[in-house]
């Protein structure tokens, strides 16, 4: 993949000579933004200050201070266990209790997608097998 084809040769194609066509070229501005985002996400671990900066930052248990069961992650109490399914969301979205529910950051970002209104259709949230 390349934006505007600065290096037209795909990385895995060293034998086909210099004139090889790039597999994908991002043509318009939106495609270039998308390609930049994808390329930034690749390449293993990066420091947040590394250049170019990643377009998505990790969030969840590593960056949110959650004091415990007495308050929820928004520092209130009205969101706690009313009903218990609601707590599931708090654990999932903010990675509050990641060992007990699938985490929404890396492994199961679409876990609750089938569930529009958790109070009514929380049963549609399926199990996740590692």
């Amino acid at each position, binding site marked *: *993949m390349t934006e*505007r084809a600065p290096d037209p040769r*795909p990385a*895995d194609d060293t034998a086909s000579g210099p004139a090889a*066509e*790039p*597999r*994908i*070229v*991002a*043509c*318009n*501005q*939106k*495609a270039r*933004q*998308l*390609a930049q985002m*994808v390329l930034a*996400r690749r390449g293993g671990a990066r420091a947040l200050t590394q250049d170019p900066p990643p377009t998505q930052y990790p969030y969840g248990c590593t960056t949110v201070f959650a004091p415990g069961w007495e308050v929820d992650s928004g520092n209130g109490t009205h969101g706690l266990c009313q009903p218990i399914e609601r707590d599931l969301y708090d654990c999932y979205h903010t990675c509050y209790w990641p060992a007990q529910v699938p985490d929404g950051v890396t492994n199961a970002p*679409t876990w609750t*997608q*089938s569930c529009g209104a958790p109070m009514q259709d929380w049963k549609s949230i399926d199990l996740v097998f590692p």
Partner: protein
Amino acid sequence: MQLRSVLHRRLSGEHGEFVYLANSAAILRLDAATAAVLDAFDAADGLDSAAWLNAQPEPGRAETTLHDLIDLGAIRPLGEAEPPRPKLPPMPFPLATLVLNVTNKCNLSCSYCYEYGEDKVGDGVGSSGGKARMDDQTARQSIDFLLRSSGARDQVSITFFGGETLLNFDAIRAATEYAEQQSAGFGKRVHYSLTTNATLLTDEIVDFLTRHRFGITVSIDGDRDEQDRHRTFKSGKGSFDVVEPRIRHLLATNKERRGRSIGARVTVTAGATPVVDTFRYLTEELGFDEVGFAPVTAALGRSYGLGEQGYERLLREFGELAEHYVAAALRDETHGFANLGDLLRELHQGVQKAHPCGAGLGLLGVSTEGELGLCHRFVESKSHAVGTVQAGVDEQKRSAFLEQAHVDNKTDCTQCFARPLCAGGCYHEAHVRYGDATRANVHYCEWIRGFVDLGLSCYARIQAANPRFLTRFEAQ
């Protein structure tokens, strides 16, 4: 895992393989092998990725390609919904443009007019009820309202509209002079524009407009025959002889003063002169910088409305004019076919609309009495009023309308590749046609898809042969 190509439009030809992705509005050029992968997964039931990979002669290479396409959102798990989008941008949305209907009177009596004719939206009697002219005080209040409602924007636009705008030149002058005084205090620059039928362009008015660098659009349908067919005075007499010398004077003065480009806006009706001929006349004979063509807005059954065949013909004629545009682009020259230029701009930026236009968002219309409507076409329609310039926007009503008008609520649009650009089309058109501004304009879907297709093929040709031309369309 079952994977499937997302909603997209593929273009394939001597200029290469391209795809326009409806979920992101990204345009990608693909090599033949990558295009073949995208096409293979374009199956209603999707494809099992593991089985497909095993069947490939070079599974390693195929996997890299597949992953690139997945990462770019071109291929996704079958049945998995796209991530939800916000229903509204953060509100109150800062205003960018205010359209002042300085008068609701007109000295012409065009047979297809949506303001006076059978399709008017105004709830009142006569033209559209309300006061005939906006007074200077309301014009100044409108400026105050725009300046204080435009948030952090450093640039705002005021567009004057009517009726025939120049029937109330006093309000235009008052508003412009007041805006010049007030804008500095807000640290904002103000752009002015106006639409006129050109019948009242005096030397004094031309001097004022060009001095303030107005963006000017002249409503004109073409040469004498075409203009006089629908654009008539109340007596039935055609307006060509009145407007032609005035337009020539305007264009000459503007050129002399190096003003902004002046456009002609042509309303296309049934049986109109071919687009290429009208374009040639308006640019070469009269000297307009650009020309935009708009199919007439009409309820079903109006004799001047474009039927299915009319739209097909218009699309063919757009195709002919597009050839001229592309030829100019390959020579790195601009061409005044405004519809195509606007479309190429949106394609190149990758515009993805949740709403068809800025009406109710960055743009509002003001009636002669200061009432706010979604846009200039909706002013004086009580049912679409969203506040007043004096009291401000009725945010609840505005948000309620916009939420309802979101493209995700238009089920007709869910399977259409053109949705990032069209988003269901003009609210006013839908109101005239279906009595509901939030409905999708399904009567012109084929026309929109055909026009976007035309734009995509022009885009691909320019991208392949002279990509530098497209950089002029880039958003900063």
